[in-house]
């Protein structure tokens, strides 16, 4: 019998709270607010007189404005660069790396302005994928918070000559004694060479790298490098708290690898098996086949148990029965997989990492799932050295500190001590090379801002043997200077960094240097290595036996345990001042704008907390954070989770005072900073709503719109994995499209469509940001998200599912099944579904528009014409997928949105807008256009070359940015296109339309998710 789990979008739906029912029944949050001055509440209804006044004024203004057309200027280049043609986009290969994840990118520029980032398909590491954070980073180039010139004491308006600053600094450095350069991980070999040259000039210079979310223990257990994991080779993956698809080390790289062995088709009916043991519900955990919620205190014990099973050693069985069973199962499967097994661990405890390394060695996976020749270099931070440095600074032993894109006052647990030392002038010379006046930079004497990476030349070596380059794609916007050049200047080297970089590449490119260099700049990537041996970590390593006994003898922990984690969007917080990232819904909690305390439902019930109640979290060190509660299904019992990256003080107007900073809560364990500790949690009585999107735009309460099945069933009979709706007709049960009121369209030219593989979608949100950048989608801010008025054209629906199945009613009885369904939120399965305009062939929106502003095109697109729309919102009301968005405000000119959507307000920020897409005005409806501007461009290019468009030439922004290629876009009229082939292959197997029964005939098809679980849906409970 077909399993039919019940899906629910959140706790509210499950509990059927009055608010949820109200929201589900009404399409729009509240009535139209004519009066906008009152910032947060829209309860004020404008009186009639105001309306008339506005109307009269508007009429008068329109009349006046129409008297004379404004004189517009057309300003051509004085000397046009040869490769720039107005109206034609240029793409330049470059590299994004800000100390978090590495991405090889292509930068799209128009008239010399970067407007969008796309993945570089040439890269063997990221293979054309791009993370949400990298997508959004184009906005940081135009951030008005950037320092615009060299200055002193954080004075933005001081007009100080740069040469004078250089002179002062050089003099001060000469007599500084001990000098420290503090930076996050630097993977640029030439930058390191420049720093080494600086150190050669000023003896006593020490370069300290630290990572805000450190992997120091992993490095210590693996000889100073991150092992070269290859998830694509693995048939069994066991992850202990490593969110490798979302935030851990190099998520895009890992996601592209991971998905190669997760896709299924009629040709390949195998997939890897993925165990996840974790505390918070992470993106990776929600994709796992078997997910077990464990407390942080059980984490080490679980690793030890697996070590005992696989490597040998005796230990008592785990007390947690479910965990024990899962570990046994994982051990058995790993043993069977042998060298095709892979164990990863996200903990920063060196004992755990040592055991994991030993397990991997025992599996013999070196050469298969771990490439020993290509270790990853994207984490090199050393917690111990950073701690030593901060202590030395506090004691006044350091003569000069240079912060190079590092912000330890904010993102280091000892930030407060450092802040006091800097304020107390314990260091003679403090220099910040940070691009903004952030928490650390504002405390320094000299601010010598670095270029943005899109304004700089640089090289990168993310994995040994794999090089990549970044090149400037815009003339520096401000009077900044590339940090490497600054260091070289101070060291007395007059060379430009460009020449310096070329010189250091002479070794790898060999023979024809100019030819090789041109190719490397063009491709953005190259092979070869420029990095020396990795520096050993300062902290001691451990033997496996010592590690085992250290874990076994760890003291028992009582009370509530706190697990600090990173979110997919904001990450470690260094790019928090990016409104796109702040408004990107967290893949799992679907919360935007700020962090919160995730608690399991049982704890909330016990403590009588409701979602949004503010609690005070106090950790052992007396650090306090007051944050609202979010009930998170899948959170381990007796634990809470809080995200890093929020609570910035001096990031800029977007990020300041959003959420609370929990870096101070991290603790030192075995020489590494870990985010797991114990905490007291107390109610404060206050309430603070969380801006969640999860229950917005609730899909009709009908049949599930997502479908899933198991690998076993898929193997047995692929025709049975998807349940197709049938409707009753006089001739019996028929497919819904057999009966229709409407005439079908005939597509002669193109018929655009999309296939979204739910098995490949990991829910990372890259497409959401890609769409936002491409289509000039406005940011609306926290209050408007709470008002259910977010503007994202594309959202990723996340459904939790309960374990109850139809068969339960027969076997367990009705009452017992209903009772079980009421409490399924301890460790639910998760399924992600990208939801966007389905471009229905029988679109319900088209028939209700009174002014024909939304119509059907001869190529299958559901067209939205903004200039015709009068804003009745009938279409949104009639849309069964809830994908239409209404412009309640002028998001580009209403002062209420200046903080969050500021880039649309200034000439500087507007440079990021896509000139081919209209910025929508207030009062019109908008929605996914299937990137019609890209379709039109692709067709035009083909016509110019007198041929038909080739498949793959035209891709939408979402399909382009997907790291796992879950979205395939193409012409369904072309029988040879990828989408046609997929739909032919999957017809009757996995392909289905959401809400098929209502017969709107979408042009977007979904492919059923397949889980690699046993058919009876095993479900370990935490």
């Amino acid at each position, binding site marked *: 019998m077909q399993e039919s789990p019940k899906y629910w979008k959140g706790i509210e739906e499950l509990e059927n709270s009055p608010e949820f029912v109200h929201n589900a029944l009404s399409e729009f949050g509240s009535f139209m607010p004519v009066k906008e001055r009152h910032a947060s509440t829209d309860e004020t209804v404008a009186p009639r007189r105001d309306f008339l006044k506005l109307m009269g004024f508007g009429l008068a203004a329109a009349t006046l404005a129409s008297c004379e*057309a404004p004189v517009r*200027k057309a300003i051509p280049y*004085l000397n046009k660069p040869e490769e720039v043609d107005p109206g034609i986009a240029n793409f330049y290969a470059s590299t994004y790396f800000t100390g978090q994840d590495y991405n090889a990118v292509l930068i799209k520029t128009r008239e010399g302005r970067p407007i969008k980032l796309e993945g570089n398909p040439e890269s063997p590491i990221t293979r054309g994928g791009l993370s949400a954070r990298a997508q959004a980073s184009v906005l940081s180039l135009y951030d008005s918070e950037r320092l615009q010139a060299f200055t002193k004491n954080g004075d933005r308006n001081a007009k100080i000559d740069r040469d004078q600053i250089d002179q002062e600094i050089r003099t001060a450095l000469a007599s500084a004694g001990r000098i420290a350069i503090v930076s996050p991980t630097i993977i640029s070999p030439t930058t390191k060479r420049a720093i080494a040259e600086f150190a050669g000039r000023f003896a006593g210079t020490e370069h300290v790298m630290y990572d805000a979310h450190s992997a120091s223990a992993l490095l210590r257990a693996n000889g100073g490098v991150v092992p070269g994991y290859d998830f694509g080779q693995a048939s069994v993956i066991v992850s202990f708290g490593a969110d490798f698809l979302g935030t851990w080390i190099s998520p895009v790289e890992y996601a592209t690898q991971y998905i190669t062995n997760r896709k299924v088709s009629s040709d390949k009916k195998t997939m890897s098996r993925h165990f996840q043991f974790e505390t918070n519900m992470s993106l990776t955990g929600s994709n796992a086949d078997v997910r077990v919620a464990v407390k942080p205190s059980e984490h080490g014990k679980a690793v030890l148990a697996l070590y005992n099973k696989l490597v040998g050693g005796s230990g008592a069985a785990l007390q947690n029965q479910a965990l024990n069973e899962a570990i046994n199962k994982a051990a058995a499967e790993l043993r069977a997989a042998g060298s095709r097994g892979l164990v990863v661990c996200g903990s920063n405890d060196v004992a755990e990492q040592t055991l994991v390394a030993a397990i991997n060695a025992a599996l013999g996976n070196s050469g298969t799932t771990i490439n020993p020749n290509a270790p990853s270099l994207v984490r090199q931070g050393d917690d111990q050295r950073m701690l030593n440095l901060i202590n030395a600074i506090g004691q006044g032993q350091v003569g000069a500190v240079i912060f190079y894109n590092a912000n330890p006052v904010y993102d280091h647990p000892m930030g407060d001590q450092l802040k006091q030392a800097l304020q107390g002038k314990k260091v003679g010379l403090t220099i910040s090379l940070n691009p903004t006046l952030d928490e650390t930079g504002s405390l320094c004497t000299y601010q010598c801002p670095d270029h943005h990476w899109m304004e700089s030349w640089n090289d990168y070596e993310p994995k040994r043997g794999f090089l990549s380059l970044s090149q400037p794609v815009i003339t520096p916007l401000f009077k900044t200077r590339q940090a490497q050049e600054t260091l070289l200047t101070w060291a007395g080297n007059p060379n430009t960094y460009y020449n310096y970089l070329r010189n250091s590449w002479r070794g790898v490119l060999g023979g024809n240097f100019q030819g090789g260099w041109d190719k490397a700049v063009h491709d953005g990537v190259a092979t070869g290595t420029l990095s020396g041996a990795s520096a050993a970590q300062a902290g001691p390593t451990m033997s496996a036996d010592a590690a085992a006994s250290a874990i076994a003898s760890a003291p028992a922990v009582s009370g509530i345990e706190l697990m600090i984690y990173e979110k997919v969007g904001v990450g470690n917080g260094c790019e928090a001042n990016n409104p796109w990232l702040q408004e990107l819904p967290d893949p799992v909690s679907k919360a935007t704008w700020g962090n919160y305390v995730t608690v399991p439902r049982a704890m909330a019930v016990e403590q009588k907390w409701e979602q949004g109640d503010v609690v005070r979290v106090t950790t052992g060190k007396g650090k306090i954070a007051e944050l609202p509660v979010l009930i998170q299904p899948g959170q381990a019992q007796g634990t809470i989770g809080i995200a890093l990256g929020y609570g910035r003080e001096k990031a800029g107007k977007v990020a300041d005072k959003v959420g609370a900073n929990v870096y101070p809560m991290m603790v030192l364990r075995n020489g590494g900073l870990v985010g797991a500790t114990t905490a007291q949690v107390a109610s404060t009585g206050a309430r603070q709503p969380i801006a969640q999107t999860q229950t917005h735009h609730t899909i009709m309460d009908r049949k599930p719109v997502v479908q899933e099945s198991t690998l076993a069933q898929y193997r047995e009979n692929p025709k049975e994995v998807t349940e197709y709706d049938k409707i009753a007709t006089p001739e019996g049960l028929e497919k819904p499209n057999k009966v229709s009121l409407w005439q079908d369209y005939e597509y002669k030219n193109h018929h655009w469509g999309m296939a979204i593989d739910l098995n490949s979608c990991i829910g990372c949100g890259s497409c959401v940001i890609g769409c936002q950048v491409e289509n000039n989608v406005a940011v609306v801010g926290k209050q408007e998200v709470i008002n259910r008025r977010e503007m994202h054209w594309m959202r990723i629906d996340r459904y939790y599912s309960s374990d109850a199945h139809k068969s339960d009613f027969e076997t367990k009885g009705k009452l017992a099944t209903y009772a079980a369904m009421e409490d399924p939120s301890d460790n639910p399965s998760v399924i992600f579904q990208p939801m966007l305009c389905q471009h229905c062939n029988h679109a319900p929106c088209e028939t209700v528009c009174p002014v024909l502003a939304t119509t059907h*095109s001869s190529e299958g697109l559901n067209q939205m*014409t903004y*200039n015709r729309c009068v804003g009745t919102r009938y279409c949104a009301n009639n849309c069964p997928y809830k994908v239409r968005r209404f412009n309640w405000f002028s998001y580009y000119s209403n002062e209420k949105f200046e903080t969050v959507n500021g880039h649309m307000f200034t000439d500087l920020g507007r440079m990021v807008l896509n000139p*081919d897409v*209209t910025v929508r005005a207030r009062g019109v409806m908008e929605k996914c256009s299937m990137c019609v501007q890209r379709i039109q461009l692709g067709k*035009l290019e083909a016509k110019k070359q007198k041929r038909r468009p080739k498949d793959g030439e035209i891709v939408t922004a979402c399909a382009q940015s997907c790291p796992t290629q879950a979205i395939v876009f193409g012409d369904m009229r072309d029988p040879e296109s990828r989408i046609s082939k997929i739909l032919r292959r999957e017809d009757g197997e996995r392909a289905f339309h959401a809400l098929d029964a209502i017969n709107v005939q979408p042009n977007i098809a979904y492919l059923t998710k397949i889980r690699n679980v046993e058919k009876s849906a095993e479900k370990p409970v935490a």
Partner: protein
Amino acid sequence: MSSYRLRPFSHWLLALFLTFTAVGQLAAQDAASVSKEGVTPGAAPAGAAAAAAGTAAPAGDAAAIAAGDALFKGNCAQCHAVNDVVVGPALAGIDKRRPMPWIIKWVKNSSKVVASGDEYAVKIFNEYQKQQMPSFALSDAEITSIVAYVKSAEGAPVAAKDPAGTAVDTSEGKGVSDAAGAGKYMNAVLIVLVVVLIVLVVTLVIIANIMKDVLRGRKDLDGRDVEILEQKTDWAAILKSGWLRGVVGVLFVLVILYESIQGLMAVGLSQGYQPAQPIAFSHKLHAGEHQINCAYCHTSVYKSKSANIPSANICMNCHSQIKTTSPEIKKIYRAIQRQQPIQWVRIHNLPDLAYFNHSQHTQVGGIQCQTCHGPIEKMDVVYQYSALTMGWCINCHRETPLNTKGNGYYDNLVKLHNDANAGAPFTVSSNGGTECSKCHY
């Protein structure tokens, strides 16, 4: 009696009104026919070009000449004309003056020929102020075809050199004369009508007066007749009468309504907009007299959405040598010196909500620049020729057949269209060219 006298007057008014309406409509139709003819010159210039080539060089290879024509306009026309000295010498008779191999060598690298001490080359170099002709990466065949074109165009009247311009010229001239002819005819009819009416009215008035006089002479009139005879038109009563006020009121309202609708429809319309530009650049001189191809300056018109305004370095290609003392050209030098780009006033302003792509129309559609921009080669100061309204766009999309010839993109579509309804033309709109999101997104 007054009713008799008033009726002719009202008839006369009605006749006058009808006549004016008819004339107005005719004129409007003429205007429409002009704009229609202006829209489809795509075929006419080609025909004219072929005709010109055919008559001037019956023995020549028409294809080579056509190719040479295009190459000449793209590469040579900035500095050379066939029959006139521009920057360089007139090219007429070049094939007789120099042998072909010499010409090829010269075009490919003139400075090399001069440096080799070739007597003719040195002479011509000195004669033209030691200005070097730039090198052109043309193939031998291409240079031969240019020479073939020069031969074909020798001695031809100036008009034959610019078939496109001429075609536009003639088609427009025809339209204008048509309109004028129709107008004259209508005027004559109108004058005759008016004269007849005046004569009628005068006659009627005379008859009425005579009748009155006759009646006055008689004494046997009864009271009613006397009343009629003595009756005076009560103008005040007419003025105060309800129906007149009603008619005037309605007319007034209608006129106001009409004017306001016309005014509103013209909001944002800037047809004929002809602002003064910072530099008095003349398209008439460059594109008209010197025959410089549009794409020489507007470099991206065939490949991009925008037909870019030329950058100052393009002006300098020629004006580093030509007319260097002109005060207008000195403005360009100044701009370059000061590193301040020239701020031209934009004439064609589409609203931001409409997407327009030049290359779609020029490269793919094969539309001439003049179709939308008007007789640009005759404009000293450019003005907005077309209305640039949505109605204007849509109309053209409805009427213009797609330029499908030789374009693989359309092959199957043409077949499908012909299978479905071979009679109807395969217009832009029948291929979805009037759908909203072709231009609005």
